[in-house]
Every structure is written in C-alpha cells, then in structure tokens.
C-alpha cells in the first residue's frame, strides 16, 4: 500500500503507545469489591417429603407481612424461589441479587406441589406447605444478616385447603379485663389440642387463623379469616370444609404494643370450643380476659 507523507504515516510509530495504553485498559489490576452477599440456608423436614419424592419441593422468600404470618403466599409477591436439594432436603437462596439488604425482614415458605403434573408449579389446594415462624414471638419475620443466614429446620406440616371460612367475634365488655378503645388485640383461632390454658400458652402449629384488631375501630364484631394452610395434626373435613373444636385466644398487645405476643400481656379466650364451616359465621362466645398474663412457649 502506498504510503502518504502525512501525520498518520509518521504516527505508525506512535501507534504502539496507544496499543500499550489500550492494553493496560484491558488488563488492569482490578480491586476486589465489597462482598455483601446474603445467603439463606437451612433444611426441610416432614413425612410428605419422603412420601412424595417425585414432587417439586420449593422454598420461597417474600417480604415480611406482619399482619398475616401464616398466610398462603401469592407467588406474585415472591422475591426469590428455588428448588430444594432432594439429596438431603436442604435449601440455599442467594438473596444478594434480588436487592434485599441486611436488616430487612422476610418470610420463608417451603412447599411441595402435590398435584404437579408437568409445566410450572403452583401453590394451591392439596399442596403441603411449611413456614418459618418463631414459636415464641409468633412472628414469621426473619431478619437478614450479611453473609450466611441460618433458616433453621422448616417443617412442611400444613396442607392447603380451598375454603372461604371466616369468623366474626366479640370481646366481653363487662367481665374481666376489658380492652379500652384503641387498644391493639392479637386474636388467634386455635385448635383445642394446641391450647394449654393451665400453662397459658399456645402451640403455633395449631393456629388456624389470626387477626390484629384495634378495639372500637375494626368492630365489633371483629373479623378473623381462617388460614388456608392447616396443620396436618388437625382433623379437617374437606368436602364440605369444616373444622371442629376451635377456640379463640387473644392477647392484649399493650406491654409493649409491638404487634406480637409478649410474656405477661393479658391473655383472653373463648370459654367454649366451637366448630367452623365454610363461609362467614359469628361466634356466640365472647373473648374474656380473666386477668392472667400470657406465657411464651418454651424455646
């Protein structure tokens, strides 16, 4: 090729510094960035796992919803969902990319798609589900820390039922401790097997519904929707839907008013058990607060 006597001909020799400079841009010593990974890991347990080895087992993380800690999650709200490792029924979620930060609270749900027939899994009636819940605080909130977070051993011990059961209840207004207008009251529908009135404690596995009401604002009567995910240790009538032998348990959330049960807060309950069917029904027994303090379940 004919060389033209111009600056670009001369600059062939000057090309090499350009090449070196550009090469340095390619191969530069990079600095390691901060490692702010958030990993959540744990294990799953439950007979449904070993009895259904061909069904998908998934673990999902959702933003914490303190009002409904045991609610069947909507997959549209999921931050991240992964498959469990079926060799040892462990799970591990890398929550760094979804944008979660240390200090944030999440809910952890595991489920087995029992009616999976190919395609995409779904969470619906018949599936088995398990929640992370702090048995002492009744809270499903898990606060994330930097690095590895221990999600513990999640029991997949609830089955999802298709129902619209809902309760309407009242509190006694002239017996025992009467909550004042504006007081926060935490109310749980509990199967009698999980209620130990003598010990003044509740086994969270037997909680089948919950509500948080403000006295005088949300009722009376106050609403309480039953959960669709019910512990397998409770006998459930499926067709038609029905639950027997339930009691309402309430905690006057005022010492402190923090949205969760604390030891010593007044414990209330319905004196008689009742049965529930699908649909809305009003409970004739009112919740009475005798004046005893709630006792947190043993760790």
């Amino acid at each position, binding site marked *: *090729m004919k*060389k*033209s006597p*111009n600056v*670009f*001909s001369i*600059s*062939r020799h000057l*090309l090499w510094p*350009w*090449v070196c400079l*550009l090469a340095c*841009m*390619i*191969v*530069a010593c*990079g*600095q*390691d*960035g901060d490692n702010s990974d958030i990993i959540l890991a744990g294990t799953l347990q439950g007979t449904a796992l070993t009895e259904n080895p061909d069904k*998908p*087992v*998934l673990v999902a993380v959702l933003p914490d919803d303190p009002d409904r800690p045991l609610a069947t999650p909507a*997959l549209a709200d*999921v*931050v*991240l*969902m*992964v*498959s*469990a*490792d*079926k*060799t040892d029924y*462990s*799970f*591990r*979620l890398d929550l760094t990319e*979804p944008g979660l930060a240390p200090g944030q609270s999440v809910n952890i749900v595991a489920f087995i798609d029992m009616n999976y027939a*190919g*395609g*995409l*899994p*779904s969470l*619906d009636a018949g599936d088995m589900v398990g929640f992370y819940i702090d048995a002492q605080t009744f809270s499903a909130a898990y606060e994330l820390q930097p690095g590895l977070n221990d999600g513990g051993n999640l029991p997949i011990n609830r089955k999802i039922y298709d129902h619209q059961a809902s309760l309407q209840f009242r509190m006694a207004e002239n017996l025992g401790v009467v909550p004042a207008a504006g007081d926060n009251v935490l109310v749980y529908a509990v199967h009698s097997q999980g209620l130990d009135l003598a010990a003044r404690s509740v086994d969270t596995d037997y909680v089948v519904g919950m509500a948080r009401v403000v006295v005088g604002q949300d009722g009376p009567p106050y609403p309480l929707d039953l959960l669709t995910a019910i512990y397998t240790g409770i006998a459930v009538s499926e067709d038609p839907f029905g639950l027997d032998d339930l009691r309402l348990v309430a905690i006057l959330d005022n010492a402190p008013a923090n949205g969760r049960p604390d030891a010593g807060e007044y414990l209330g309950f319905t004196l008689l058990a009742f049965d529930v069917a699908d649909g809305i029904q009003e409970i004739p027994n009112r919740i009475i607060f005798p004046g005893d303090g709630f006792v947190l379940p043993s760790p």
Partner: protein
Amino acid sequence: MDSKRKTTGRRMGLMPWLAAALMLCAPQPTAAELQTFGFIELDNLVNTYADQDFADAVKKNEIRANLEIKYGRDDLHLFMKSDFYYAPNLSGDDDPYDYRYAAESEVANNLRISGTEYEADFNELYLDYQFSPFRLRLGNQLYKWGTADVLNPTAYFNPYDFREFLLRDDDQFKQGVPSLSGMYFHDRFTTELVFSFAHVPTLFAPSGNFWSLDMRNALYTSRVGSDDSLPTQWENTGIGGRISATVWGTDLSLSAYRGPDRDPVMVPEQVSFPPDEPLLLVIEPRYHIVNMFGMDFSKTVGDFVFQAEAAYSPNKRSLVMQDLSGLDTVQIPFDTRESDFISYAAGFNYFVPTGKIFENHGGETVFTLDWFQARYADDDLYGAYFTDLLTLRLQDTFMDGRLLFKYTAMFETQHSGSLQWPELTLDFQNGWTLALAYVAIDGDLDGETFEPLFYHYRNNDFVSFKIRYQI
C-alpha cells in the same frame, strides 16, 4: 427408517463439498490466479455497568483473522471468505465464559467449527462458474436479497448471528448457507434461483454469555436451548427465486421462497428443578417450513435513495398466547400455530451535500433512516421478537477517508427500547485502523412476561475498541 434418513442426510450434506473438490481437481485450460486479501484484528469490549470489578467488566478480547481467497479464473474459480476467531481470557476474569462462541464444540452444516474459545467460519466458500449469460455457484453463499439497511424481510436464506444482539459487524451478521445458485443475466432483467440443501439455524449466545438470552426473575430462570438444525433431508431443503429489473428508473425485485423459516419460534418447552436454583424453563428454538413471497425496490431521486422491502407468508408460525397471570394456568410446552404474516422495511439514504456547505469537506456524508415492522394476522399469537424498529444513522468521512464517524440510533417503539451507538474509526492508511465505539442500550419492561430484548440488554452498555491490520 430413522438411521436410513440420517445416512441420506449425511450424504446430502457431503455432496456439495465432494463436487467442489472434484471440480477443483479438474484440469483447467489456462493458468489459475490466486488472490488473497484479509486482515487481522484485535476486538475488545468492556462493559460499563458500574456495579462490578474491572476484570469482570472486560467481556471480550477477541483475535480475528479474516482471509479472502480467490483461486482460478474469472469464469471458474473458488472463492472463500472466512474468519477465524480466538477469544482468550486476557483479563483474568473469574468467569471466563462471558464470551463463548458455543456451549460446546460443534460443526454446523455450513462448516462453522465452534468451540468455547474459538471459531472458524466459512460464510462464503463456493465454486463459481460463469458461462454467459449464466452463473452457477455451489457451496456456502450469502444472498444479498433486499434493500433494507438493518433487517431484511426478503433475505430468506441466510440466518442471522444474534450472538451480539444487533451489534455484529455487517460482514458477521449473516451466516452463509450451503446451496446451489444459478443466475441468468438478461439485458432487461436478472433472475436467480437458489436451492439450499442443509438447514443452518440462527445463532444465539450460549447460556452464561454476556449476550445470552437467559432471563431470570423471582420464580424461574429461562434459558435458550441448543441451536438444533432441522434434519438434512429433502423435506427441509429450501428453494427460492428472485427476479430483478429496472423499471421506470426504479430497481424492482420480486421473490419467493419455500423452506426452513429463517426465524425460529422460541418455544417454552420444558421445566426442570435444579437444586438451590430457581426452576429452569428451557426455551427451544423451533424451525418450521414456510412459504414466503416478497418484493423490494430502490429508487434514486436527487440525493435521496428510497428503498422498501416487504415479505408475506401464509403459514409462518408463532406461539399461541396464554394467560400468564398465574403459574398454575400456564401450559408447558406452549402451542404454536400458523398465521398470515407480513414484514416490511422502508427508508432512505440521503447523501448530504456537505461539500456544498463546507468547501474543504472531502468525504461523503450519508444519513440513513430505516423502519422495520412485522405482524401476524392472528391476534392470539405472540408477536415477532423484532418489530417496530426505527434506525437512524449518520456517517461521515473526513481527511480523505482517514477519519470515519458513524452514529447509529435504534428505537424499539413498542417498549421504549433504544440503542445509541457512536463509532469513530481512524484509518492510518498504512494498513492499520483503530475503531472506538460506545453502545448504550435501554428499554422498558412494560409489564411484559417475556422481557423485551432492549430491556433485557439494558445493562449491556459497553465501550469497544478494535485494532486492525489489513494484509
């Protein structure tokens, strides 16, 4: 029966190469001439996404060797235009798979030989035989049918290489297909017939690549499956013809085609559950036989060259829409269905008379506008992946061709997608050229379940520089 078909397919695939070899060995009456051209190039790409280490930001260091050979006479010669690529991991990146040519070693029907770090392409490798007024070609060929500047609706034969989205160089953007073509030159028209005997699929970046189509959301990861070509058998051959003429000062062409659709239907086909990972949705590119009819024209009016191109198919396939609001209602695999389909491109090139404005401006200034749209008649089908695309390009040369400036802007108007692409090339006119470019990509999700491509690549902004030496 299947093994017999496979044997027949292999024989068909080998036939053109055997024929070419035999013709080369045939004695030639006059001396053959060997002409060689080529270049060697170092191409580097650095992602400008801020939240990563610099070593991770270096996405490509590629050595490219281009070789063009013509051996023989003008009326009988072997022509080859090939590229050899090697992409070593120079930056010490922990993830060396940011840029891979293929997921694993493979040899395609058009002799493309790919590994993870290397590739050899023979997009043009054919025997050319001319005996006026005919011309025959046998081998890998590129058919430059159509007049559009970006996407050609009537380029039925040559599949695209989307391994760098829309950003491959013009000479890398389409793949040659093994074929036999015949051209007839008449005083008033030209006609070309093409028979392609082996299917070549569209290329997508493999999984894990910087340009891969892997999509990840809270519930699942989607991954494009392998680029399986249709079996090499008579049913999957392609045949097409084009007739071109100049009528009333307008270059006009009519074309028709029957054969494998250049554009695959991306079918969500299967679900798996890898441990500790979101569920995996595998999307398989599926190819079907289509009939296409097209036309294109080009007309010069003053400093403007107007061009348009359109193609119609009565049986192009796409995915049947599903209700994606709940996972439990989604059926895997998706169904596909045939539909009437039309795609067109229209635009112009304006040769800006900058010499009249700036006396010393010695170069050529061209402004290009191109609009591309594709539509299925069936409203129950998902639309084409590329559609509603407006491209604007301004290019100018200065200092007697030593400096080339090019600015390309693409707008995907359905989802506010955009791509801004300025390039500066310095030609030292001693064989060396240096090209610098920057690409910025943006787009909106707009609530779509399947990410629009511009949105998917919104973090793929990059700076590139190439150093080339022309042999």
